[in-house]
């Protein structure tokens, strides 16, 4: 890869290899970027803790596969109970049994059930699909409760307040991550050990799974937003919260769905990469931020642009790790600057005050 004097030389094989690597990573960033755009559009929250969903998903999956019970299962239960208390407090003037029962089922019984199942299954080997399902359930409920606890009470606050709250969530979740998973990195079992070679490139089942899942999720999101009532309700909330409320859309529910989707997407991304790279409790933050770079390039509004930008980020990262591996992160994060520059030069529209 490098000649005797250390200067890297690029040939077609290496270029293809880097491209492949970049596209695999880019696909992951695309997923995260999409989740960020989704959450921002619906709730105006800039989801800094997206990276934690990635690590939680990955490390929960890895821990389960090694036959242990991950701490995230307990966290989900604890957060569910807090969410239930919030729900009780919010509805204290109009306590109805149906409402209470529903909240109790989702906030308490669901995570308890998942935890019980986790303990039940731990210690004996199971198909990978079981671990994946459990991980997604755990991280999904954490995402749902996170919105209920941290963001729903301040849903009308300014973007800045929501952003700082998101930072607070990131700090807390990362701290919990260290507590649950320790400082050592983990790897999880591959989804498939199949591999085939098309000269000169070797495709592993895992990388195919990454591409397939990304495409499937993008198609799924497209179908969800285009053709389902809930998807349309989410879009309506994104365009105008007040208007959505007036036509009977429960914006709180929209927010919860957005967070649920984002956390599941994050967890899926984590599960997809943990067989390829070792993940640490704090790796997610950086991965999330790269999804974030893509989302910014996409302007936080456009899904297709975000997906393309994410591929670009992945490829730039791969090539800069080849040419200047020391400055890989510097290059990826400064990629934003020219984009911001272009946006600055484009004439800003007449803006009305926000608050």
């Amino acid at each position, binding site marked *: 890869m490098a000649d005797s004097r250390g200067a890297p030389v690029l040939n077609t094989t290496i270029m293809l290899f880097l491209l492949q690597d970049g596209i695999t990573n880019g696909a992951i960033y695309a997923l995260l970027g999409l989740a960020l755009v989704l959450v921002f559009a619906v709730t*105006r929250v800039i989801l800094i803790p997206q990276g934690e969903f990635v690590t939680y998903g990955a490390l929960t999956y890895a821990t389960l596969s090694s036959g242990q019970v991950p701490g995230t299962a307990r966290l989900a239960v604890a957060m569910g109970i807090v969410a239930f208390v919030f729900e009780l407090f919010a509805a204290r003037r109009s306590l109805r049994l149906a409402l209470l029962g529903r909240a109790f089922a989702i906030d308490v019984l669901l995570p308890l059930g998942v935890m019980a199942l986790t303990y039940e299954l731990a210690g004996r080997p199971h198909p990978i699909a079981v671990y994946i399902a459990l991980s997604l359930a755990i991280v999904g409920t954490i995402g749902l409760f996170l919105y209920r606890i941290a963001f729903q009470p301040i849903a009308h606050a300014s*973007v800045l307040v929501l952003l700082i709250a998101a*930072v*607070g969530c990131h700090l807390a979740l*990362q*701290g919990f991550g260290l507590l649950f998973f320790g400082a050592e990195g983990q790897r999880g079992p591959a989804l498939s050990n199949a591999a085939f070679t098309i000269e000169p490139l070797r495709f592993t089942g895992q990388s195919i799974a990454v591409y397939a899942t990304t495409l499937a999720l993008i198609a799924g999101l497209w179908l969800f937003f285009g053709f389902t009532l809930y998807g349309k309700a989410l879009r309506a909330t994104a365009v105008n919260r007040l208007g959505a409320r007036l036509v009977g859309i429960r914006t709180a529910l929209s927010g919860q769905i957005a967070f649920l989707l984002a956390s599941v997407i994050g967890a899926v991304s984590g599960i997809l990469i943990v067989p390829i790279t070792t993940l640490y409790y704090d790796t997610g933050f950086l991965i999330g931020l790269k999804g974030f770079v893509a989302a910014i390039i996409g302007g936080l509004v456009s899904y297709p642009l975000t997906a393309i930008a994410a591929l670009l980020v992945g490829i730039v990262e791969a090539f800069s790790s080849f040419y200047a591996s020391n400055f890989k*992160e510097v290059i990826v994060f400064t990629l934003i*600057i020219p984009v911001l520059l272009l946006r600055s030069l484009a004439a800003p529209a007449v*803006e009305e005050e926000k608050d």
Partner: protein
Amino acid sequence: MLQRLPVMLFAAAMAAIPFIPTMPPFWIVLLDNIGLSALVAMGLVLLTGVGGLTSFGQAAFCGFGAYTTAVLTTAYGLSPWLTLPLALLVSGIAAVGLGLITVRLSGHYLPLGTIAWGLGLFYLFSKLGFLGRNDGISGIPPLAIGQLKMIDPGTIYFAIWIAVVLCALLTMNLLDSRTGRAIRALRRGHVAAEAFGIHTPRAKLLVFIYAAVLAGLSGWLYAHFQRAANPTPFGAQAGIEYLFVAVVGGAGYVWGSVLGAAVVVVLKEILQSYLPLLFHGEGQLETIVFGILLVVLLQIAPTGMWPWLTALLPFKRKRKRPDVSLTLPRRPSTAARDGALLQIDNARKQFGGVIAVNDVSFDVLPREIVALIGPNGAGKSTTFNLITGVLAATSGTISVLGKKLDNPAPQEVTKLGISRTFQHVKLVPDMTVLENVAIGAHLRGHAGALASMFRLDRADEAKLLAEAARQIERVGLAEHIDAPAGSLSLGQQRIVEIARALSADPMLLLLDEPAAGLRHLEKQQLARLLRELRNSGMSVLLVEHDMGFVMGLADRVVVLDFGTRIAEGPPEAIKTNPEVIRAYLGAVA
């Protein structure tokens, strides 16, 4: 100086602390850290709390300050005092570069952008060879005055806290000035500020640089306090923490930064030393508690602790009355001029396929009240926006005093003597009526940011405030002069907007629905005021829906419908014009 008495007392108390004999040295270290953190947060107060620009990247500017002195003192043997201006300069220049790119971004792009370059710079610090990569630079010489070397935390304490108190004073001075008002107006969007000649991108860049220089100062002190610099304290986490400090203290308040720094530093210390005992756990328990506390705080007190604390004080700060005998030079009167003040000739504005203003022509003569009326959506406010430069006309010309304007910036229009009010009130709600009105006189003052910081602007400032106070008196709101503008009724806020427009000493006043929300008596007062203004030589162009008000007041009425002028003439003729009746009431029954 009496105004600054609390600051003096605070400074004296801080100066006395190290001399308390039983003071544990560890507390002094904590106080040093509080001071360092407060400096950065103070910049954020100005940038984020006051100016509305959120930055997660302040830690990177600390890095610029710290590394500048680290490199220059260790590799080139420069004296630390010599590197101070250089450290500030490097931070400032970095801020100019990053600021030019980022501050024009609106809303959430700005914080996102700052996270990105904050991270990029952190990795740059940790990879560059001459900055010592991840290990950083050690062996930085201590600050020294003659033989006194500031090695122990107790001596550098003075350097840190002198810097904090000085910077707080300078920042307070800056905020309480012409430039300060411009900065405080930023948060409410740029349209109103620009209508009175404030150059908003420049004001944003100014606060950005100011905040970066404060962070650079903190970094310079940090480097000589730790005698080493490595990348960790300048990363994204630290940038987040500084914002946290500002929000905890109260992001809109200079002293909130000191309070916030104290709370956060002490809290962190307590969490770090006691949490492991409580839970016997490994890991970063303090970050968990920290994060949760942040979310809790935002839910119960989103404006921070400082306003909550000052509300508990039994006495209120007294405000000084401006000396209304001072006057500003006035614009040459246009009352005796022949020919129009404002000529609109075939002005057209298209938004895509919608023609909002369709080749409209009319003019405004000296000493004349012209009313622009028409049903909703007739294009009245768009016409206002064309005249004031908020929107560029698709075609047609607009001339002022016979001179054609070529898509002027709003700041240029107000210089020509046209000032306006807004249909949707655009005041800064937490500034007093006096301060809001003084924004109108922005272009009639000259003091810049540096002059304001060092209080060299007082003569200039007194005249601006006097002018503002006079205009408030003139519109009949003298009793509300010190009330926050947001506490007034909507009708009164409209009148405040008129006073603000009058402070610019206009020859032509553009009023967008001034009577909306006023009670009957207030409307009569307003009509009297406008007549008085006309009689003193000013012209008024107003958009209004209240026909009784318009017909009794205007000299001439221009009627728009669907963007087209359908009638023009004296009120009596307009009242009976069949076209107008059709536009308002539909087809004749």
